[in-house]
């Protein structure tokens, strides 16, 4: 157990009526700090389910999930929420910004939830993130006034603002045209290289997979490396 993420024989069953669906089956993955990992596979293969396990959004049916040394299996909602807030950053396929908040406020939001930084430090941190994703000028704009690529940059800044141990991205480029998508992956890769942030993302796109330092292939709920 040395990786920042350790999945050991993780199985997840979802109830479906009287039956249940096995979304992933005995998945074991170890991901080290600073890796830039792509999870790839066909639709329905279990990519989102794996990311949900890693992201403490759900707990496995059997097997263990360990995130930055914490085993999540027996944790309740409160503890899982704390883990997500402090250790994990999320980037979504459809950006998922809070549409009544502007770019600055969206990025600031997780810091406000944490409530640890002073107002001044918070402001400095948000501005630093805006600069890193190249949106200093757009800080006062609301999501509906931003392009898709800009929205995903805001989302990246929001995911990184708390200095999480891992950043998860479920198909971050799927809703973007290929040029913009490439730029987003490049941005993530830069942040990974320059700041050592661990990224785990799922994708269908071979060009995106190419950028990964590590590729986990899944099919039918199993890892097929």
């Amino acid at each position, binding site marked *: 157990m040395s990786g920042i993420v350790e999945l050991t024989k993780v199985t997840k069953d979802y109830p479906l009526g009287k039956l249940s669906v096995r979304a992933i089956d005995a998945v074991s993955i170890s991901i080290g700090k600073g890796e830039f990992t792509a999870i790839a596979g066909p639709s329905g293969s279990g990519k989102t389910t794996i990311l*949900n396990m890693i*992201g403490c*959004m*759900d707990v496995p049916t059997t097997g263990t999930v360990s995130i930055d040394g914490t085993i999540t299996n027996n944790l309740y*909602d*409160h503890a899982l*929420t*704390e883990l*997500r*807030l*402090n250790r*994990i950053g*999320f980037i*979504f396929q459809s950006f*998922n*910004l*809070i*549409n*009544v*908040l502007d770019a600055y*406020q969206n990025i*600031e*939001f*997780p810091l*406000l*939830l*944490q409530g640890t930084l002073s107002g001044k430090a918070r402001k400095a941190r948000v501005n630093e993130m805006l600069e890193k994703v190249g949106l200093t000028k757009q800080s006062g704009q609301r999501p509906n006034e931003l392009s898709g690529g800009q929205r995903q940059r805001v989302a990246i800044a*929001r995911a990184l603002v708390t200095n999480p141990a891992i950043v998860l991205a479920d198909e971050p480029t799927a809703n973007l045209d290929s040029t913009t998508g490439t730029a987003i992956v490049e941005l993530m890769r830069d942040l990974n290289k320059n700041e050592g942030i661990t990224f785990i993302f799922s994708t269908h796109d071979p060009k995106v997979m190419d950028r990964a330092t590590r590729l986990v292939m899944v099919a039918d709920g199993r890892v097929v490396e």
Partner: protein
Amino acid sequence: MGVLFLIAIRNLVQARRRTALLSGAIGLVTALLVLLLAMSQGIADNLVRSATTLSAGHVVVAGFYKPSPSQAIPLVTDAAKVRKVLEESTPDLDFIIARGRGWGKFVGPGGTVQSGFGGVTIADEPRFVSTLQLAMQSEYKDGGKEEILGDASRIAEPGAAILFVNQAKRLEVDVGEAITFVTETNDGRTNTIDLTVVAIARDMGMLSSWAVLGNMDSLRTVYKLNDDTTGAFWVYLKDIDRADEVMNSLRVSLAQAGFQLMDHQGDPFFFKFEEVGGEDWTGQKLDLTIWRDEVSFLVRILDVFNVVSVFVASVLLVIVAIGIINTMFNIVRERTREIGTMRAIGIHRRRVLMLFLIEATMLGLFATTVGALVGAAGALGIDAAEIPAPIEAMKMILLADTIPMAVDPVTLALVVVVLTAVTALAALWPAALAARLRPIVALGHTA
């Protein structure tokens, strides 16, 4: 968490039409409730004013004198001694007046009126003249002049009588004209006395149909009373709200001074004849009441009005609450993915609950404040416009000829607080649902 307020406000502003509709409904109910309460307060104010002018002091020290077990005369004997106790031991005393109590038939050129006859000792009552509002001749006489005839201070003259408009109309008398008071005296004989109308006052609700005011000496003459008697002492306090407390303390003082007391009973004295007449004691007993007891039948009407008002407002409130619940469920459904996102980022359930409660509370606060102000403005407008009561029977209930409205800031604030709380409460269920959503389910939701 200022950001939760920001999110709530911006969402309310963004859903402009929905917010407007919902706050319109909440505001309407608030305004209606404020109007009903203002009317209730207006009636209550009138009730206090007319009761404490025509029927009672804040505390009433009266009683019955029974020369034989079967007779009950509403009289206080040993009046000077009673008054001395009252003057010495009434807490919060403002002033004391003595009122003679008579009952009989007033006969005028146009008809007769059954009424009480209040015996006034003007020397006792410095404020008497100012509490009565005299009517213009046109108010009680067809083709009368727009001019006040008569003078309330002439009540001091022997044989003087002051009528109210309703009585003057029925008797068809004017100021300066004569009427006759016919009554049964304490020994069971009929006696009469001629009176001169010295002033005609504006009605003060239904109580003024049973009150003719006259000189105490006229009462003494017609009932053959000695100088050391009176009908009742009306004790006025600096603070009417202390009436109950003062009555109880006076009971103790009077008992210590050796007076016999009747048990307290919350009814006007004229309801008590039968019972007192059936008791087998003789001599004098004092009976202490407060103003509310002397007009208990009107207080009951007001209570009914209040119950009906609260019922109507509650029904409307329930309907609006259902609307709020429904709307909040819609809001939660529309924002499910946003809730999922926030939960993924790391917001706790309790804060999701708060977010929606804040939203509902702000909506409620805004809507009820506007509604309360509109209602208050409407109430003040109606009061100022002196809109006449549309039906005669309403005048009795309203205790006034026009619709009375009184706006009390504390009541307004209370209405705002209570209705805002109701709004928040209505949002509790949808907000709890939002808080309970599992993050992956909420995220997967496509609105």
